């Protein structure tokens, strides 16, 4: 039944009401499900390593450390300075390795290459390896996600 000046009939109004109510109920059920299936995940802000474990690596070689659930790569350059990278390929997330003889990082998954400073030089990687920032405080080697003053 529709009144003369009404925009919709009583049936339409009730259908809308029930539909809206069902929709709202469904949304309130879906929300916790969505929250549940995405576990909290946070990349570490920093990791602290024992400097003595890492300072004696040879120039032009690397040592792996755990950066959350990814490998971190600590590399000693020829001048003795240290660099740290997140050791996963920027193409499709495979763990990379350092080829000391060729002075390159290599990703075996799709034949991706980076130079010794982590710049992408060949193959599919779209970006350089992500660099991490190193500081040494006493006996501690601190590796940070961002450069903090």
């Amino acid at each position, binding site marked *: 039944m529709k009144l003369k000046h009404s925009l919709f009939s009583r049936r339409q109004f009730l259908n809308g009401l029930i539909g809206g109510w069902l929709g709202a109920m469904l949304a309130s059920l879906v929300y916790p499900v969505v929250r549940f*299936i995405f576990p909290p*995940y946070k990349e570490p802000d920093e990791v602290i390593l024992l400097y003595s474990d890492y300072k004696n690596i040879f120039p032009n070689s690397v040592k792996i450390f755990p950066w959350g*659930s990814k490998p971190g790569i600590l590399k000693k350059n020829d001048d003795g300075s240290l660099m740290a990278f997140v050791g996963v390929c920027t193409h499709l*997330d495979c763990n*990379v390795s350092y080829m000391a003889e060729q002075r390159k990082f290599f990703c075996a998954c799709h034949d991706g290459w980076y130079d010794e400073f982590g710049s992408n030089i060949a193959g599919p*990687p779209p970006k350089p390896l992500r660099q991490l920032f190193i500081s040494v405080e006493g006996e501690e080697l601190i590796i940070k996600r961002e450069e903090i003053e």
Partner: protein
Amino acid sequence: MKKTKNGGQIRSWLDERFGLSSVTQFLKNKSIPQHKHTIWSYTGSAVLLFFVIQVLTGFMLIFYYKPILEEANASVARIMTEVPLGWILRSVHSWSATFMIAFIFVHLLSIWINKAYRRPREGTWMTGVLLLFCSLGFGFTGYLLPWDALSFSATKVGTDIPRAIPIVGEWVTKLLRGGGDVTGDTLTRFFGIHVCILPIFLLVLLAVHVYLIQKLGMSIPLEAEKSQKKLKEIPFWPNFIYREAILWLILFGICLTVAIAFPPSLEKAADLMAPAPEGIKPEWYFLFLFQMLKIFPAKILFINGETVAVFLILLGIVLFFFLPVIDNKPDEKKGKIIKAAAFLFILYVVIMSIWSLM
């Protein structure tokens, strides 16, 4: 055959309650048209055979497999070395998966080429394509479960691919991995998907698929339909089923033989921190996609090459799904082009797969 009095009573008791006679009557009347493409009608039941083998061997493997980071690899090693005949069961499970996917491809391609999906069988094709994706999902999740270095890296790549899709991609990757990285959480999640979620989806889809095939009957070739000549038919029961049974026995024999001769290997347990091993590759049915991702350059003009590749793959999937709707004039020029596209697709997949192995 003479029925005993008791047998007849039990049958009528059951029939009164479950109405089985309508089903048996249907099967008695069902017939399979005979023509030069009839051979392709056997591919569907071959898929079904391997699916049943997958379910049964899967039930067995679940008794020993442990879906957690610390134990997954060791539990598979135990199945292979300690559990009596465990190696055969795992090998059959792995080989039967390969045969199942292979026959799904043959099944779908034969339908594409013979245009058996044409009106009113679009729904049968679409549920079939969804069944293919379900099966590929089984393959992808099952590949990780032994948790060795190869499967770990392949899963890192596979779950990272959606990330190239703008906006939602990041969430899809997180959803698949159960976090930002492939870890023990991913393993447990993949196990749940492999043994619980996908089976339910697959069974529902399969029910719809088989129902549609029964409701719409077997498709007959386009030429036969045009000439309106009455095709020879053979009864489904028992003539066609017996022919299928012969094929099932042969295929089962082949599957068992290769499973015993070439059991799948098991590498050392995956190390989250170790570099990807050289020569990583996914299961053979993903090789052509793997090769495509490998040859795409990092940048195409100013767009990320990977994003372009992923969008091309998605476009391919959408076209494939809607193929019967697109191919709405099967006996005209457009239909012929779409048929030729099937052969081009086969050629593309074969070349890319071989290239990826070189």
